[in-house]
């Protein structure tokens, strides 16, 4: 295009441009510093230092023979550190490195602008690692800095005002925010993902695993992270009834409990419910597994969810974003009043060998005790009466882990109790399985919802009794009743190792925390969780339920245009005509023009007045007075009264 062909933007940036750029790039780097490998951080520090020395000592920029090996080494380093160039962590590392190297070879303002654009892109990548309010606020610093740096690059004149750059950047961003809000709320949302998402994007997510080994759940309990939040439609159930059902394990290999492939082909277990339903909605944190936690026992399937035969509620995809769903459960139920022979065989499975003592004990019970109910009682009696301890830090177990736990160490966390209880039951001929999930939860009075944390993770068992179906038995409750009644903090003696927020010993801190969590919950619900569904919800709330989503695009365009029009009107009004003095004086000039006197372009007010006085001697005094008053108003102290006077005089002319 002929108007832009001029090479005007290719000048060498000045010292302050380099400073602005380096400072804002430091802020971008700051967003990533925590999750970049040490060597990349070191390299970046070196690059920043180097670039500054280039500027301050007028060194020359490194040339290809330096940059090329550096680039190749960097890429090789990333491949070695991350096992490849793909995946979230590797691409962010690569982008950071490229930004640094581009900075090293940036000479002209055009290079600088490219660096700034890459830096904007790198900023958005920070959200792959977390989207808390803190990160959102932290984003504003690099974005403001980068924008100010960009502004500085458009001014070739020396000695530009530093404050101006920052002020203008803040003004521009301030004016962009209303438009951004419109776009955020109304831009038609598509359900992601559009393409594959690198697997490692979710590796830092915590949650229940698809298997249970001794030590798994106690490790999870050390995390203070929120697992999900629940708001109940009515009063929440008693704490002892709050069993949040997660993965169900029916297969034991001697070491770990897991779900066998066969479990999916078992006949569906029938559920009959009694009493009032409990209605609630769950906001589940992403955990990269399909489980959708629901209260025992779910009587209605949440929208879009699947149910396995043993009544695990599963999402169609691993939960990788925060999701919200409505749950309906019944606390009184009968699950599977009949058990098919296939299912029974599966649910009695045990490894061929191992744990002889436990097997012997179970055989004894089977021979001596009248029925299954009595066997369950006998097993629970062992836990209750012998000196078992409920602890987060149990000693390691030997090859026969069940024997070792039951007869030697007797120290364990819920997975030890649930696992060994289910083993004993199976050995005694009672179908049994392990259920993992969460138990309990903390009511937040601030937002009137319940927080369930990873530290509430729990494991219990279900045994199948004739005529009663599956019965939940929680052996942990036998050892430590307070775990179930009052939560983990009251059950563990060594509270110090629990996450700070699961403890009860700092009431002030807890209160602060609960307030903070309520704000966070709002943030999660309305900002982070704002998706297609929320958008539809919001629109139907504003426009009534009949608002057709097909109109969304039209609405989006209309409101955006309106917002744009408003901003344009504020910014683009012509202020030249708003100078009242000029308007009044123009009236005078028009009057003179009618008398055949035109003010020449170069002619000042005084010269024009002199000429006019000569040409129109009759009006000379008035013209002189008007001009004098005009000049006084223009260059002296302005006042409304004398402006009125000027108007009057012109009218009388």
């Amino acid at each position: 295009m002929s108007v832009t062909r001029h090479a005007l933007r290719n000048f060498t940036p000045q010292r302050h441009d380099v400073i602005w750029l380096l400072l804002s790039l430091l802020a971008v780097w700051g967003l990533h510093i925590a999750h970049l490998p040490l060597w990349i951080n070191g390299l970046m520090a070196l690059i920043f230092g180097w670039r500054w020395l280039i500027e301050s000592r007028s060194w020359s920029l490194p040339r290809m023979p330096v940059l090329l090996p550096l680039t190749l080494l960097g890429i090789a380093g990333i491949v070695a550190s991350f096992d490849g160039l793909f995946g979230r962590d590797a691409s962010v590392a690569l982008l950071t490195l490229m930004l640094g190297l581009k900075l090293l070879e940036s000479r002209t303002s055009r290079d600088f602008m490219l660096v700034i654009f890459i830096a904007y892109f790198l900023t958005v990548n920070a959200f792959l690692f977390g989207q808390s309010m803190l990160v959102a606020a932290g984003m504003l610093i690099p974005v403001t800095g980068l924008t100010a740096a960009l502004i500085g690059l458009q001014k070739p004149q020396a000695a530009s005002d530093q404050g101006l750059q920052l002020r203008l950047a803040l003004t521009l961003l301030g004016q962009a925010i209303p438009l951004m809000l419109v776009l955020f709320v109304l831009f038609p949302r598509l359900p992601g993902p559009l393409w594959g998402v690198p697997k490692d994007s979710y590796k830092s997510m915590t949650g229940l695993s698809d298997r249970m080994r001794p030590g798994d759940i106690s490790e999870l309990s050390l995390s203070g992270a929120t697992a999900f939040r629940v708001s109940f439609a009515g009063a929440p159930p008693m704490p002892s009834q709050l069993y949040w059902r997660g993965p169900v394990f029916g297969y034991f290999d001697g070491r770990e409990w897991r779900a066998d492939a066969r479990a999916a082909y078992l006949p569906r277990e029938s559920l009959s419910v009694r009493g009032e339903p409990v209605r609630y909605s769950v906001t589940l944190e992403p955990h990269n597994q399909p489980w959708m936690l629901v209260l025992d026992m779910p009587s209605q399937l949440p929208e879009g969810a699947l149910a396995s035969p043993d009544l695990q509620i599963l999402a169609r995809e691993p939960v990788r974003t925060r999701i919200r769903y409505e749950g309906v459960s019944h606390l009184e139920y009968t699950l599977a009043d009949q058990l098919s022979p296939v299912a029974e065989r599966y649910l009695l499975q045990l490894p061929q060998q191992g744990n002889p003592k436990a097997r012997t004990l179970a055989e004894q019970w089977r021979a001596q005790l009248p029925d299954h109910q009595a066997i369950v009682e006998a097993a629970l009696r062992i836990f209750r009466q012998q000196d078992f301890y409920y602890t987060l830090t149990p000693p390691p177990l030997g090859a026969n882990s069940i024997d070792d736990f039951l007869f030697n160490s007797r120290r364990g966390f819920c997975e030890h109790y649930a696992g060994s209880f289910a083993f004993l039951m199976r050995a005694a001929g009672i179908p049994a399985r392990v259920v993992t999930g969460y138990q309990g939860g903390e009511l937040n009075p601030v937002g009137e919802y319940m927080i369930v944390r990873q530290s509430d993770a729990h494991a219990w068992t279900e045994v199948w009794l004739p005529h009663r179906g599956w019965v939940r038995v929680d052996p942990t409750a036998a050892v430590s009743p307070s775990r179930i009644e009052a939560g983990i903090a009251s059950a563990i003696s060594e509270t110090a190792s629990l996450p700070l927020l699961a403890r009860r010993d700092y009431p002030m801190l807890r209160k602060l925390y609960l307030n903070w969590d309520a704000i966070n919950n709002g943030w999660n619900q309305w900002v982070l969780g704002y998706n297609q569904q929320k958008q539809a919800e919001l629109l139907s709330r504003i426009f009534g339920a009949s608002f057709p989503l097909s109109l969304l695009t039209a609405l989006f365009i209309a409101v955006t245009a309106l917002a744009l029009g408003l901003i344009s009107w504020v910014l683009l009004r012509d202020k030249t005509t708003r100078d009242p003095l000029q308007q009044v004086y123009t009236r005078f000039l028009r009057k003179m023009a009618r008398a055949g006197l035109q003010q020449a372009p170069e002619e000042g007010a005084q010269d024009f007045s002199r000429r006019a006085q000569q040409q129109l001697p009759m009006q000379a005094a008035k013209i002189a007075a008007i001009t004098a008053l005009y000049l006084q108003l223009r260059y002296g102290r302005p006042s409304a009264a004398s402006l009125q006077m000027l108007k009057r005089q012109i009218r009388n002319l």
Partner: protein
Amino acid sequence: MSRPTAFIKHSLNWTRWLRTARADARRGPVLTTRHIYILPTRAGAIYGTIIIAMLLGSINYSLSLGFVLTFLLAALGIVCMLHTWRNLAWLEVSHCQASPVFAGKDAALEVRLKESSGRMRHAIYASCESCLQPQSTDVPPRQSGTITLIYPTTRRGWSEPGRLTLFTVFPLGLLQAWSYADTDCRVLVYPRPAASGSSHATSTDQAGKGSRDSLLGDQDFAGLRHYRPGDSPRRIDWKASSREQGMYSKHFQGEPVSSAWLDWHETKGTDGEERICQLVRWVMEAHQGGGRYGLRLPQLTLAADRGEAHYHRCLQALALMELPT
């Protein structure tokens, strides 16, 4: 370039269909809303591409904050468009002029922009079709700013730079707003002086009006002065110049006493332009000499006189002279 391709190129230059701001009786061209065009720059296109990449990434990873930043940057681009536009709007090209130059030299076009909206205007560029490079200035509120454009000249006569392009990419460089302004700007280009070898003295006819060197011979030597371009090589004191540093020419007391006539018919050669160049050289030398001189052209005679004004009058006459056929 052959004529058809030039014609096609001219037709394809869509910018000539765009509006041009013109002066009215009272003011120079004002860049009103109707005259301002705006398009993304190359940097703006890269910025847009990056925003689209960010949007796709945000959809793919369901990043709510990704949407926030994407939309913030998109909105920033839109707001930037208004600011860029507003940075140019309502400026007045109050003044455009250039001092005369000899052909082949660069003229300096002074473009003055007047601000009357009470806003600081940053980095306003001006360029013209045949100017060397766009130049920029800041215009403070209710004041003026001046841009000096370098305008190379080739041929004598009035040279018109054509419409001016005023443009700006401020504040973010993502968009370029531009306007065309028609100004009465024109440059008087004096003919290129002939090489100093073609001095008037070498081509005199002694009869009648007399030539300058014959006058100079009668003068008393008064001293040396630094050589100035246009001094006759005959008057260069070669001895002094080799002794001292720099060039010196002899200066004569009381010179000149009478006027010299620089006559078209005294010039040699068949090429009219060449002959004009010779006359220019003579005028320069006569002016340097400080004496009175007159100019006699086929259609015009300028009476003998001296001084800057006369010098420029002579050069202007030569610049605008029509060659006799």
